[in-house]
Each structure stands twice: as structure tokens, then as C-alpha cells.
């Protein structure tokens, strides 16, 4: 019963979020701030995780390719496919659910407990729209850019393994990267990323917005936003993969 209540409450909040912004100029200013916070703020972690992810994937594939009938170019191919289809869109989104999601939930939650949301309400401003909508739009645009960047860095991470070890040659790796490429893979990854971005921001925004109480609840909301967003990302990952690839 509580689940249905929460879903209803979430949908009603989304109705408020998706309203027309009060003032376009103010909205644009907030949007650019969010581009910076979500995008540039996550840049470092995306680089570090992606480069190591790509390197580990290429080592694992190389380690498992014992059969001489399978060409070494499969290492580059497999690394590329894994980075594009799964690791960058899904794993990075899970990381962003932790970093961006918890930050959004605690920011909005703190505003709730310190009556800043009530202050917006009293002024006649739609607080849900004012606070969540710019974050949502920013994430929808910036997360795909981050994920594409992550794909490139992951693939480069695999290349570095070839350069610094003797598991495979860089030439074999690059050749592998260029075979059997299907552009739809990128499109599929971007669709997933946009859906995950919506999940991350709206779940975190909802958890922060409905807080009642004090600082303990802010912490709980932050944790809940990461847990629920991660579960939803995993579920939607399966649904989208089943729907788009099969």
C-alpha cells in the first residue's frame, strides 16, 4: 500500500516539476550552474573509473583468450563492445546515482528542513519546478556527453594495457576496435543513459522533497535516493536491453 502511495506522490511531484519555469532567464542561469555541477563536477571520477575499467576489461579478455584459433583482435573488439553497451552507460550511471543523486537529495532535503522550500512556496514559486527541473534538463543533456567521453576513455584505458604490457600489441587492439562496429550500439547506450539520468534526478529530487524532520532524515533520504535509483537503474537496464537489442 505504501509503495502505491509513494508512486502516486512521485507522479504528482513530477507533474509539478514538468511545469513551465517561472522566469526563463532565471531558469537558464540555473541550468548552466547545474551543467557545471553535474557535468564538470563529475568529470574527474568519470575519467578515473573509465580508464581503469577499460584497462581491466582488456586484461580479463586477454587472459581468457587461450584458444589460438581466436584472433587477438577480439580483445579490442570485446573491450569496445563492453564499454559501449554496458560499462559506460550502466556502471557510470550507478556511480553518478551515488555522486549526483545523493548530492541532489541532501541539497533539496536540507532546503526542506530549513524552510527554504516553504519560503519559495510563500513567494508564489513552484518549488518542485524551480529546484528539480533545471537539474533534470541538465542531467538529460550532460550525462550522455559524460558517458560518450567515458566510452572513449575506457577504450583508451584498454589501449594503454597493450602499450605497457605484452598481453597484446596496440596494433592488434586498434584493429579489433574497428571490426564489426554497429552504430546502433551507441544509440542504445545513449537511450539507456537518458533514462538513467531521469531516474537519478527524479528519485533523488523526490526523496529530498518529501523529507519531514531534521538532519537524520536528510541523511536517510540521501541513502534511500542512491539505493532506489540503483535498483531502478538495474531493472530498467534489463528492460531496455531486452526491448532494444533483442
Amino acid at each position: 500500500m505504501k509503495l502505491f502511495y509513494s508512486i502516486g506522490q512521485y507522479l504528482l511531484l513530477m507533474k509539478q516539476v514538468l511545469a513551465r519555469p517561472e522566469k526563463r532567464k532565471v531558469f537558464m542561469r540555473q541550468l548552466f550552474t547545474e551543467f557545471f555541477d553535474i557535468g564538470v563536477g563529475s568529470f574527474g571520477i568519470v575519467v578515473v573509473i573509465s580508464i581503469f575499467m577499460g584497462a581491466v576489461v582488456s586484461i580479463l579478455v586477454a587472459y581468457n583468450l587461450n584458444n589460438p584459433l581466436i584472433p587477438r583482435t577480439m580483445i579490442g573488439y570485446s573491450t569496445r563492445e563492453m564499454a559501449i553497451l554496458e560499462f559506460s552507460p550502466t556502471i557510470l550511471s550507478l556511480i553518478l546515482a551515488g555522486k549526483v543523486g545523493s548530492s541532489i537529495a541532501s541539497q533539496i532535503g536540507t532546503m526542506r528542513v530549513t524552510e527554504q522550500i516553504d519560503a519559495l512556496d510563500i513567494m508564489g514559486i513552484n518549488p518542485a519546478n524551480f529546484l528539480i527541473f533545471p537539474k533534470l534538463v541538465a542531467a538529460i543533456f550532460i550525462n550522455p556527453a559524460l558517458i560518450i567521453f567515458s566510452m572513449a576513455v575506457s577504450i583508451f584505458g584498454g589501449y594503454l594495457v597493450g602499450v605497457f604490457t605484452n598481453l597484446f600489441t596496440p596494433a592488434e587492439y586498434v584493429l579489433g576496435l574497428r571490426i564489426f562496429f554497429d552504430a546502433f550500439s551507441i544509440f542504445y547506450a545513449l537511450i539507456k543513459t537518458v533514462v538513467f539520468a531521469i531516474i537519478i534526478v527524479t528519485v533523488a529530487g523526490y526523496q529530498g522533497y518529501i523529507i519531514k524532520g531534521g538532519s537524520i532524515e536528510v541523511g536517510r533520504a540521501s541513502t534511500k535516493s542512491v539505493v532506489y535509483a540503483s535498483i531502478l537503474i538495474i531493472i530498467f537496464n534489463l528492460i531496455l536491453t531486452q526491448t532494444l537489442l533483442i
Partner: protein
Amino acid sequence: MIEAFYISKFFSDTQVLNAISVKFEKGKNNLIIGRSGAGKTVLLKCLVGLHEVDDGYVDFDGRDFSHMNRKNRKNIRKEIGMLFQGGALFDSYNVEENVMFPLNMFTKMPYEEKLDRVNQVLQRVKLPNANNLMPGELSGGMIKRVAIARAIANNPKYLFCDEPNSGLDPNTAEVIDDLISEITEEYNMVTIVNTHDMNSVLKMGDHIVFIDKGRVGWQGSRDDILSSDNERLNGFVFSTELTRRLKRRK
């Protein structure tokens, strides 16, 4: 003028407000007092629409606020300024941005004009040159003064203050009381202050409403309160040695 007509409010099965009817006039300091849990904050929140009333209605100068659609309600809210207990300043904005916020949202003034208005209200609350300070750098009294500046920046018709003196030392509390009184007179606003600070009650209470167990227990002015024979009111107002001495001297 703001009038409440028989407003009632329930939380689950608990009735917090019971058919409250009260009138708050323009240019006066209207104070809502009462024990903790008496329902005064709920009454204030019902008046500004943060809580929906379950029965009765609130009227702003002949406009039925409680049964209005969202759009019309928004127009009235633009005429409201509110000072929250903790100030409720936006953490990520500095003082200037906080005070300019209602002007950015609801006016088409050029930046210079908005800045002039911000400096004017900051001067009015005796905080010149505080424009670039962040809320985290302000003292309790300064936060309240910035919150007052933000509340009056857009020339509101109605000012609501929720425990403006909470957490302040007596001197600073007096400064805030004086400021609210002066601004009420200057802007000819309907000012409603929710307080349990007896200094404020005796100093600025032009019209005092005592809320007791969700009902209006007593109404009158600061002069009437000293001669009232309402036991519940006297038990609340004269609960300290200082106020008892004052009553005896009267």
C-alpha cells in the same frame, strides 16, 4: 485586512484548530501567542496557505484565499512577505542575491534598479555593505534582518513572522521587534507575528490573539493584557517572576 472565518484543521484524528475566527488589521502589529502545541504555528501556516484548512476560509482584503485556484493564489502570494523562524535564506546565494530573489522572479526591473532596491532595503534593516556575505557568515540577528529585507523587497501588503526572536539575545530581539514595528507602520502592511516572547507582546502588541487548545482564548491589546482576568491567559503571560512583578505594579 486578513480575516479567518471559522477555520479548523485536523492532522489525522487530532483537531489542532477549532473554528477560529479572527481579524488582522492593516498598519497594526498583530501577535499570535500561545503555549507550545497550542496551534499558533499551524494557524500561521493556514493563513499563508502552507497548510490547507479543513473547514472555514481565509480572506485577504475580500479575496477568499482558501478556495482560490493555484493561479489566483499565486497572485496573492506575490503580495506576501514571510520571515521564517530560522530565516530560510537560500544557502547558495549571498545576501544581495537572496534579497534580489523576489525582484528577479516577479519584476522586469533592470539590474541597476534591482540593486538600488536591494541596497535600500539592506540600509533599512541596518545592514549596509553586507551584500557579498554568504548566509553561513551571518550571525542570528543578521540572518533575521536579511530575511526581513528579502520579505519587504517587493513591497508586500502582508508580512508574516514566525517566531522572529527565537534564538536571539534580548538586545537583538528588541532590534528585530523595533524593525518589524517600524516597517509595519512605514509600509502600512498587515503584519502577523507568531511569538511567545513576552517582551515582544508587551512592547509591540497592538492586537494580540491568544490561542489556547486550538481556539481563540482571548483577544485584545498590550494594555488590555495586563488587566485581563482570563486565568488561562494570565497563567501563560505571567508565568515568569519578571512578568508577575510587572502585573503587581500595574
